[in-house]
């Protein structure tokens, strides 16, 4: 359960942003999360409730956008999806894929603010 550490990281980034901008209220925190980040969205939502409790972000929602895995297929010479996280092959031509382009994301992408 390392989602709590991740939630505390989100809290820290949000605090920094709010401090920098001054006098804003955060309605929602938008995240981008890839399947290869090692973080589970549901567990992160629960961890966020714990981490944000009794902070000014207690009521701020986490909006998690899951980013699908994309690879660069050496045969297609193009960016492609994979068959699944258990089958790292190009969906178009079945070529095994080694170059991950997307899917490791673990970031705060945006904040939804109310003045």
């Amino acid at each position: 359960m390392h989602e709590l550490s991740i939630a505390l990281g989100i809290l820290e980034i949000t605090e920094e942003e709010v401090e920098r901008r001054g006098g804003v209220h955060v309605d929602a925190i938008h995240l981008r999360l890839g399947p290869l980040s090692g973080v589970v969205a549901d567990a992160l939502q629960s961890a966020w409730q714990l981490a944000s409790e009794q902070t000014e972000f207690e009521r701020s929602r986490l909006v998690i956008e899951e980013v699908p895995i994309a690879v660069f297929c050496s045969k297609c010479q193009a960016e492609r999806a994979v068959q699944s996280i258990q089958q790292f092959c190009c969906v178009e031509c079945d070529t095994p894929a080694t170059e991950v382009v997307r899917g490791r994301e673990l970031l705060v992408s945006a904040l939804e603010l109310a003045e």
Partner: protein
Amino acid sequence: MSAQPQIATPRIVEVRQNILKRNDELARELRRRFQAAGVFVVSLVSSPGSGKTAFLEKTLTLLKQRQYRPAALVGDLATDNDAARLARSQAPVKQITTGTLCHLEAAMVEKALEDWNLEELDFLFIENVGNLVCPASYDLGENLRLVLLSVTEGEDKPLKYPTIFNSSDVAVVTKVDLADAVEFDWNAAHANIQAVRPGMAVLPVSAKTGQGMVAWLASLPGLAALEPAK
């Protein structure tokens, strides 16, 4: 003038901050320090009981016998049993007790190295907490990440934990002396590893019999010419 009430419109501001940026920055700094000191750093991840400590003890002992200067950091939730076992190799060993934390982070590695002189080492091994989930997210500044899979765990571990296999460089299959006894299916294991991480090197080893240990050591930089065990 319309009498519409004023509704504060939410506005979206872009942030784009990596949540683990602090860990990643620290890991980069560690990697720079390791390189400057000429230390090659290997981390080990696996589930509990897969034979990480036995494999590491054998590795440290064999490197010491060949006049290399290895050292190890070992993460464990509560005990220092692993560090005590590894210390038998005569290599410097330090325990990182993580408490309730299920993985190592770069800051823990940095702290554990505070009173070690990296210039005096050739290899540093970092044994992560036994866990195939959480360690995947944390860069520790290592050059090589090994994921260990014992023959007693079953061939489908890579499919159950694709993220950790995908984030590792080499798969080490341990306890191969037991492979026949548990009817380990090599073809299935190999296919599953290649499915989640195409092209991944697979090294079968037994710390008990020594099988595969020299081939493993020979894959480390500068050790290619290692003599096979007599």
